[in-house]
């Protein structure tokens, strides 16, 4: 398979990596747990 592109191989890997990573988010439940802990932590 050949793709004629103005992008270098490295640029293409970077694009794909950005697509992959941009989709990844922690769950709402995990974020809520973290923020609740941040609000109540008495660990000073």
């Amino acid at each position: 398979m050949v793709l004629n592109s103005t992008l270098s191989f490295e640029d293409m890997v970077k694009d794909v990596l950005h697509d992959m990573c941009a989709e990844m988010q922690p769950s709402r439940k995990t974020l809520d747990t973290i923020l609740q802990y941040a609000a109540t932590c008495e660990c000073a």
Partner: protein
Amino acid sequence: MSEILNDKELVLRYQNGDVASFEMLVDRYQNKVFSYIAMLVKDKQLADDIFQDTFLKIIRTIKAGAYKEEGKFIQFAMRIAHNLIIDYFRKAKRLPMVDPTKEDYDMLDNAKFTDPSIEEQMITEQIHDDIRKMIEYLPEEQREVLVMRMYDDMSFKEIAEATNVSINTALGRMRYALINLRKMAKQKNVALTVA
């Protein structure tokens, strides 16, 4: 709070009891930290657990007054995430490494489009899909540097500090990641040419 505060100011405000400042830090970096973890452990639930542990440790460190503004907040967060991932792999006793020269290394079997009439857009999508698979097949230490460098825009000095290796080792891992990706592409006839 309409002003844009830098990380150091947000940490300071949180230390002084302003929880909203910590929420802003989480919001600012949740994608970078989570995607880094998820790209390494390749399991959503596990990534969630390690992400949570990372931020709980960050909270305890800040609240204890032990956070040192020696680098960027993201470096500090990545170093904690990196250490927790290493702990997980040590406990699970699995450090999967991939040998792309193996005969059964065949994750690109679906890359067999040869019809010249296929739209370039379709080819691009297929190649992107193949590159995703190739990235997932990289050894973890190479995938780690690839994500930190190409997605998180960290310098090799920052990567070296976050992963506790020398700058030369970080550079070497990046180099081998690209070499291995090219090797995999060549093995599966995914020829990426520059016009």
